């Protein structure tokens, strides 16, 4: 569900005048009859690596990312870094724009700041842009909109924040992506938040419910686990594999078998054999369904209805480490390291 922007002011700016231009926009809004509160819960640095049109177009940006939805739900000082790493002649920031989007009914209207900076400067200089623009008294999250394997997160940039948000659905090569994230996982440099991980929620809850019903985990250490996934859902399948390994403390040699297959509407289908117990868990866009050979009716856990923007906003509100995600990633890092060696 798209957030309704009540009003948006946007103007081109320059690196030197961003705050002055924002202040002018706030003054302009201050002249409205409707009182507008300045809403800001955090800094949200959105990184995009791309060659785009030479000017800053907020409309184009908003069309490509669900930013309005995110900041409507988690009002943040939005700093969009559009970095052109491919340009042959690196240059300092060459285009900027600032804006304020307002949301909410007239009785409770709030405004959120938006800053867009396009640069082709040396990567080492990018943190200096963020340092200058971020409000230090707020938590900072970095939303990496690129496939981390193709455009690895810059450590100096990412570690300026508390949290790195990404979406593993973008990953084309899971092993390579995990290789990039491994230092962040092993050294706890930053809280990791994977938007894709949220989609495993119903399946993970279904496993917990099943364990309560049977008195033991379905995917206990000794169980044989196969994960078949849709060809576009490899990262989801591997995340699940990591979660199961972490939960059962499985060694890499006992890792679930993961393979692409024809799964119909399902993103993943998990089959578990544990002695006489056999179970199949299917995860679709509607939710997770557990069918056990010995049980009667299947156990169903619904998938929350959540847009991408809502999912990102929800992750931004987590200011602490998601220990389950971290454990799953750590298990996968160990697994791929073992397979490489």
């Amino acid at each position, binding site marked *: 569900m798209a957030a309704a922007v009540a009003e948006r002011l946007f103007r081109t700016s320059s*690196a*030197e005048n961003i*705050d*002055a231009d924002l*202040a002018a926009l*706030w*003054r302009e*809004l*201050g*002249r409205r009859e409707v009182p507008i509160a*300045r809403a*800001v*819960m955090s800094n949200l640095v959105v990184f995009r690596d791309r060659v785009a049109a030479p000017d800053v177009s907020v409309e184009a940006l908003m069309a490509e990312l669900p930013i309005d939805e995110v900041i409507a739900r988690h009002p943040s000082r939005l700093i969009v870094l559009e970095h052109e790493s491919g340009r042959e002649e690196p240059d*300092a*920031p060459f285009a900027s724009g600032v804006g304020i989007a307002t949301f909410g009914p007239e009785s409770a209207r709030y405004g959120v700041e938006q800053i867009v*900076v396009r*640069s082709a*400067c*040396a990567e*080492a*200089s*990018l*943190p*200096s*842009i963020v*340092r*200058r623009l*971020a*409000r*230090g*008294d*707020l*938590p900072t999250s970095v939303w990496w909109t690129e496939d981390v394997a193709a455009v690895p997160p810059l450590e100096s940039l990412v570690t300026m924040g508390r949290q790195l948000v990404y979406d593993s659905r973008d990953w084309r090569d899971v092993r390579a992506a995990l290789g990039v994230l491994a230092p962040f996982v092993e050294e706890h440099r930053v809280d990791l938040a994977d938007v894709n991980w949220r989609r495993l929620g119903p399946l993970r809850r279904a496993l917990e419910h099943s364990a309560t019903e049977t008195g033991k985990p379905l995917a206990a250490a000794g169980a044989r686990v196969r994960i078949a996934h849709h060809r576009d859902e490899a990262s989801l399948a591997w995340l699940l594999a990591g979660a199961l390994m972490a939960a059962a403390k499985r060694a890499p040699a006992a890792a679930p078998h993961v393979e692409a297959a024809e799964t119909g509407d399902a993103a993943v289908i998990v089959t578990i054999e544990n002695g006489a117990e056999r179970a199949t868990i299917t995860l679709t866009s509607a939710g997770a369904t557990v069918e056990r050979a010995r049980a009667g009716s299947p156990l169903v856990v619904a998938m929350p209805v959540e847009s991408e923007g809502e999912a990102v906003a929800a992750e931004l*509100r987590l*200011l*602490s*480490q998601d*220990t389950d995600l971290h454990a799953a990633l750590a298990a996968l890092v160990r697994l791929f390291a073992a397979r490489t060696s």
Partner: protein
Amino acid sequence: MTIVIFGGNGDLAHRKLLPALYNLHVDGLLPPRLAIVGVGRKEMSDDAYRAFAKEGIGKFSRRPLDEQAWGAFSKLLFFVNASIDGEKGLAPLGARLDIIEHEGGMKSDRIYYLAVPPTLFAPTVQQLARSRFVARESAAAADAPIARIIVEKPIGRDLESARAINDAIAEVFDERQIYRIDHYLGKETVQNILVMRFANSIFEPLFNQKYVDHVQITVAEEEGVGTRAGYYEQAGALRDMIQNHLLQLLAMVALEPPHALDADVIRDEKLQVLQSLRPIAGDAVDANVIRGSYGPGFIAGKPVSGYRQEQGVDPGSRVETFVALQIFIDNWRWAGVPFFLRTGKRLPKRASEISVQLKEVPPILFNARPDARLDPNVLSIRIQPDEGFSFGISSKLPGPDVRPYPVKMDFHYGSTFGATTPEAYERLLLDVMHGDATLFMRRDAVEAAWRWVMPILERWSQQNGALPAYPAGDWGPAEADRLIEATGRRWRPL
């Protein structure tokens, strides 16, 4: 009234004083019979001076130049070519002032603004006395013309030279006629510190060692040394910023409640704070004071050179462009509460802030998880830019779980009061015209600050090792982080 600006065609007048006076004119705050007379060695006609002023106002005024307002304002401006050299150096000035004041129907109430290097303070004042421009207020008749003098920091480069300047001025002017400007004290948010503390019942009860964990005062400059290399090579960050601006801010935050809003009462309380600072001397300097020098780096994505590569700077310079200190105020209110001060050039952004961090809640209930500690409550006073203050608290996130999230109660001058905030010089110049010295430094406070700073300078003068370096665009050297982290705290990012 006549405002006589020595150095009237200099940078300070161009960038600050003339734009400030113009804005006071636009606001209708200047007295009705006023002349502004620039004084300088350079030959300049009144018309040329008006063009000089117009350019400065066009570039640096917080308001755009309005031709109609300018038309009236420009008539107030005059320029006199005069020198303080020789016995009759100021004679042309005296003659011209007599004419201007006579034609304008003014009394000879005069404010002398010394917008000149500190080395010229004493000679200028002596010339004013020699030319009989000044009558001591204490010795003058009640209806005698007003004579006030404004001097800019730096007041000396050490205690001895500060005393020499103060003595020279005191030979001609009474202390109540002297206005020592620290423009930081003219900023709205600095003035608001007193209002915030003593006009609200919520904050003052918390401002003491029982509730405050520590205080941080940061004055960060994004600019490098620029065209001031000559001055800066003789000064450094400790003299340029700590001795005056930051210690004054500290005094405003830490002072006891004054019993009246009277200039001397408030300045007495500030002096008490400065006199309560625990001395830092000898080995304690190394443990509590960190200095650094910026190297090459990036500012907002653009490469910039290091301090020693700047034009006019000695390539082997050991002048500090960054200082961080841990300070204690040994009085009943602040016993044991560390005050961390830092200032530097070529930091990531221009930002000045005072933050008062309250003690953490006990590690139970919502603060029980070691991996998810609550953010402590912080009162932060933003001095510049985006003037205002905020108070950080924890609030429950909407949703089924009880999860605290740090939120802020935030006040912004710009979006609350609408209009642009007056520049510090506007307020300060107006105060001098009204004879209110509350926001100006008194001699005893200036010398108390120098007295406290001197052992640090002396310690540094005995050392000749390399200064810690920090890349331009970073928040100072790693040693500064270690200074505060050794106490279990962290610098607050701005």
